[in-house]
């Protein structure tokens, strides 16, 4: 039985659709409205607010915090400046990704790691030689993501910080209408946006303050359905959907390396050894077997395919996450793991894992499409991600 998050009194009052799902043991809203576009548009045009409290959060403190996390993470977080956040992943000894998340440096000896799956065991298991304390702050901290082009305008009413000084992936400790907390310029939408971290007891006050000040800026609460569309447009992968964590995978074939997931850029090999570094160095030498790519599914062909059945193209407005075969010249070369119609780009998009020799931008593959219970294919072109990358994200 999932638990309510500290924001449940507000989210449940607004969630008149009763559309919920379980997220890391908590009740999380899927959609507040039966018209999901309203929430989507709020995020892309105004601002959206989502309760992301269920994220796993770990505070790592102590004089070895930097050395310890640099040992566990593929990225050299000892180099991370105070007041910065890094996106990264962590691997097992074989260089297979366990999870991806963010790592924020709040103070010289204070980091905060977010994760999609429980990570306490893995962190503490590897901490034996280090003078660090690892605290699971998942339940203690509430988190709200305020995303969208108007998010900064709203925050100006709510928090004391100099927002112009908070750059993309920046962090500042501040007060939100009197409530102490941490503001990070991060999110899972690929848009201008922030995440706000406060003690759980303060979460309701923060929500109320944001909703009140956000009213004039088109702020709407949004749920996981909209988040899923936005994150695919942003080209962000999802643990358990686009890849399996090494601790969840049932076979070797289900595991992935950072290079295979397009996370090679997060790996800092040129430093002392870290968990998985030997395997990753070897892979960098010989090249990876798979690549995670973006696919743009041909719309003209989709229309023509549906027309053969006397139908207009029927696409779900929601993102999908059932793996679908991807072919090249009739031979299966991979799978699309999630996808969505992009209301903004007017494109049918997917994230797919394909063999490395089929992953060059511009390669035309075929993706399975079922129409009237018949399995057919339409062309899909490998394109660069993010699919949607507005200048305001970093402005």
């Amino acid at each position, binding site marked *: 039985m999932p638990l309510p998050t500290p924001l449940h009194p507000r989210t449940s009052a607004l969630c008149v659709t009763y559309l919920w799902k379980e997220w890391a043991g908590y009740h999380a809203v899927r959609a507040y409205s039966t*018209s999901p576009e309203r929430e989507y548009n709020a995020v892309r045009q105004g601002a959206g607010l989502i309760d992301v409290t269920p994220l796993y959060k770990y505070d790592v403190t102590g004089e070895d915090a930097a050395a310890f996390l640099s040992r566990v993470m593929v990225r050299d977080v000892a180099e991370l400046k105070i007041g910065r956040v890094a996106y990264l992943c962590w691997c097992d000894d074989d260089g297979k990704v366990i999870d991806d998340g963010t790592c924020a440096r709040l103070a010289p000896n204070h980091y905060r790691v977010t994760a999609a799956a429980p990570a306490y065991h893995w962190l503490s298991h590897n901490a034996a030689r280090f003078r660090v304390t690892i605290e699971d702050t998942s339940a203690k901290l509430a988190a709200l993501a305020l995303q969208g082009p108007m998010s900064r305008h709203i925050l100006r009413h709510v928090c004391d910080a100099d927002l112009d000084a908070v750059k993309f992936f920046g962090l500042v400790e501040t007060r939100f209408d009197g409530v102490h907390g941490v503001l990070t310029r991060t999110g899972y939408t690929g848009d201008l946006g922030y995440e706000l971290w406060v003690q759980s007891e303060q979460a309701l006050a923060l929500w109320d303050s944001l909703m009140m000040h956000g009213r004039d800026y*088109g702020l709407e609460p949004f749920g996981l359905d909209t988040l899923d569309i936005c994150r695919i447009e942003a080209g962000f992968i999802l643990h358990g959907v686009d890849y399996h964590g090494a601790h969840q995978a049932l076979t070797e074939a289900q595991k992935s390396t950072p290079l295979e997931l397009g996370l090679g850029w997060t790996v800092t090999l040129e430093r002392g050894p870290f968990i998985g570094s030997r395997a990753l160095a070897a892979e960098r030498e010989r090249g990876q077997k798979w690549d995670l790519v973006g696919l743009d599914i041909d719309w003209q062909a989709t229309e023509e395919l549906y027309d053969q059945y006397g139908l207009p193209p029927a696409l779900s407005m929601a993102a999908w996450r059932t793996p679908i075969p991807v072919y090249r010249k009739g031979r299966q070369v991979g799978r699309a793991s999630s996808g969505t119609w992009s209301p*903004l*780009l007017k494109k049918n998009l997917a994230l797919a894992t394909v063999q490395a020799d089929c992953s060059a931008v511009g390669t035309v593959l075929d993706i399975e499409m079922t129409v009237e219970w018949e399995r057919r294919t339409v062309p899909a072109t490998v394109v660069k991600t993010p699919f949607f990358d507005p200048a305001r994200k970093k402005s």
Partner: protein
Amino acid sequence: MMKSYDAIVIGGGHNGLVCAAYLAKAGRRVLVLERRYVLGGAAVTEELYPGFKYSVCSYVVSLLRPHIIRDLELARHGLEILPLECSFSPHIDGPGLVRWPDPEQTRREIAAYSQRDADIYPLFGRAMMQIARWVKPIIDMVPPDPTSFRLGQVRDLFHLGRRIRDLDDQTLARLVKMMTMSAADFLDEWFESDALKAPMSVSGIIGTYLGVRSPGTAYVLLHHYMGEIDGAFRAWGLSRGGTGQISLAIASAARSLGVEIRTEAPVAKILIDDKTASGVVLEDGTEYRAKAVVSAVDPHRTFLGLVGFEHLDDDFVAQVRRFRMRGSSGKVNLALDRLPDFTCRPGDGLHVRGDIAVAPSMEYLERAYDEAKYGMYSRRPYLNVVIPSLTDPSVAPPGKHVMSIFVQYAPYHLADGAEMWTDKREQFGDTVVETLAEYCPGLKEAILHRQVLTPWDLEQEMGLTEGNIFHGELGLEQLFFLRPVPGWARYRTPIRRLWMCGSGTHPGGGVMGAPGALAAQTLLEERAL
């Protein structure tokens, strides 16, 4: 040294810009000349009162072709469309009617007026989808000339014929009915409730000098459902930053493809020697030469103004004159200090975030037309209201709003002459505000600024002949291979090297971009440059 281009596009509205962008994408050197200081033509955003951005004329994106958004990467150039999902028809007495995105909620709303209509409504939608699916490909096709024996055109005609043959009898019958009946009669065949039929019928008359009971108006109802087919696509909506943002996004795409764009560059004449266009001359005397001149302005201005009678056959001139422009609508834009409540449904909920139609009954709409027939503006006009600031906070200061009010009927030809509009402008504006205030009592007190555009203003300021928002009415006799003139529907003109790409060509008005794209495609296929 005079610069020379492959193509000069006259008019920096959305179609001119789309055409230019596609030509540049194919590697051509293109110059766009815009008369005003701002791009967009009738798809323009202007900040006429500090902090408030008006979508001055066109206020909704209707059927902007999704392939154009993809081809020109308009999202990357700043285009974001917010779908209009709700239709609210307020009443003075009673709750009014809202059609919601949620079909069950809509069913309950309609059932308050007629249980029968509530059940039929989705069936009607399904029937329209089936017809629209047949009609829609026509939008994206260069009209074949039915008298031509050229292979490509015969093939296109054959395909069209085959599509008709594939229609089942019922759908075909409905299609023929839609092409001949009035919107009112057609809807009467389906529905009994006036409260439902009235707001549905208005899509048949928008921009047309006809009433809901005039034959031929049913066809335009279909256009609404084509937007539905565009499906997930949601072709109907508001553009973030106002309608002008569409033009600016297209302009940005065009520039990135190498198009040169000049504003405040009014073209005086198209240069013609021996029935062949060679360039244009601006009002200040500057001349530009090009292999092709493409006019995005309406057929009247193009031929009767920029070309001139001396270069055209009398017969052609007569046909252009017969092409009906007849503006019938006006526009009122308001800057509001606060959001006034609609008496029948207060608050700023979803119902006021879509389009709001003051169309309480069929009789109301037909009476509005009665006055227009005799050269008066309607004392109680049909109003189509949107409040874009509710969904797009970027167009007004926080907590304040812009309201766009499309008004019909405002006939261009007033009984005492079109130029009398300058005297009647504010009076007309008062009528509009008073009409809306009957439903929305706090409106007058909330107004900070008001802009009134009569058909006369649309002609004088925006260059739309007779204030016709579609560059010519969307009647069946003026569509497809008849638009604008039979025999000249393929973007060509009797003047060699002069082409058309505006809403006066197939498939017509609205912010579709299709005429511009199809014209560019034709120019390239015909190796015109």
